[in-house]
């Protein structure tokens, strides 16, 4: 028997879980290193024995019973439970993504409609000045421009306030 084999068995030998066969005994008698190591392992095992765990408390069964009662009382998942399954949730996500993709890919009409709006605006912006359409369009643009200036003024005032507390 080799030292390596004895060492592999040492935890069981030291804790008494494996019997010391005549073969092992023979090796230990002739190998000081293994017999010394086994003795130290036995002492270590005896030391570890001192760490005792407490008994379950008297309330263990009561608490477990209460938790089991809660478990039993839980409503059954039913058909809605399928939606909580990760695989199904992933499948639904993929289906929704495909659906949204189809709407956009087939939704040329939306963009076409948008394009038409732009085209309409372009037509209105190209309207000649002096005409009703052209004047209204110019007023609309100016209004937007003045609004932006007012916003910029507000920002400047605020900066001044913070600069001179």
């Amino acid at each position: 028997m080799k030292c390596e084999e004895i060492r592999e068995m040492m935890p069981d030998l030291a804790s008494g879980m494996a019997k010391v066969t005549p073969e092992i005994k023979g090796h230990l008698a002739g190998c000081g290193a293994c017999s010394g190591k086994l003795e130290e392992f036995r002492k270590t095992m005896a030391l570890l024995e001192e760490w005792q765990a407490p008994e379950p408390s008297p309330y263990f069964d009561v608490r477990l019973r209460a938790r089991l009662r809660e478990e039993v009382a839980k409503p059954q998942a039913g058909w809605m439970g399928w939606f909580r399954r990760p695989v199904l949730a992933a499948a639904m996500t993929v289906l929704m993504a495909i659906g949204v993709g189809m709407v956009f890919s087939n939704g040329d009409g939306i963009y076409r409609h948008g394009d038409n709006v732009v085209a309409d605006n372009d037509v209105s912006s190209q309207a000649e000045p002096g005409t009703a359409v052209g004047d209204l369009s110019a007023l609309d643009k100016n209004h937007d421009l003045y609004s932006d200036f007012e916003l910029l003024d507000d920002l400047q005032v605020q900066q001044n306030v913070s600069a001179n507390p």
Partner: protein
Amino acid sequence: MDGSVLMASLGSRPGALQTALAGAEPYTDAEVMLRVKAGDESAFDYLVQKYRRPLVSFMYRMARNSAVAEDLAQEVFLRVYRSRQTYEASAKFTTWLYRIATNLAVNHARDTRKERPEVTVSLDEPDEETGTTMDVRDASMTVEESMVRRERLAAIRGKVEALPERQRLAVIMHKYQQMDYKQIAEVLKLSESATKSLLFRAYESLREQLKEFI
């Protein structure tokens, strides 16, 4: 399964199955679990009564707190109960049980790694983690002897806890749950040879670090 029957069963003493076991062929735990699967409520009670102490002890050494240990052990039983319908007796029942327990304990240890205080020694106060008088001083012990004993216990707990995760699990299962190499290997999903080597390294490390107390 009818919940009220299960509750009555868990409260009954002794359970119907235990009474039946007294004069019958012994059932394996896997067979008992198959009876749980089939709706035999007393079978679940039997498993709880059989494994609650070993599981609380296992969890205590993993979580180092008796209240948390009980909570985790109960969670193991709840998971067993939840999985009863899908249980297959392909593996040994204890392997399955300790796999659930190991997963729970490891997750708990990882979740609370930063919250856990160092192992401390106090002469005057009862054990802060168990709340019990586990280390009550023997009348024949001097104060000094009592202090040395507490230091030794703190060192044992500290050194076991400081082992790498797998080594710690293997030592707790081997030393304190009396599980053999094969069972430990199955729970940890290792080869038997790797488990032997893991345990040797773990005990060697403990021997080295605890030699001042030997």
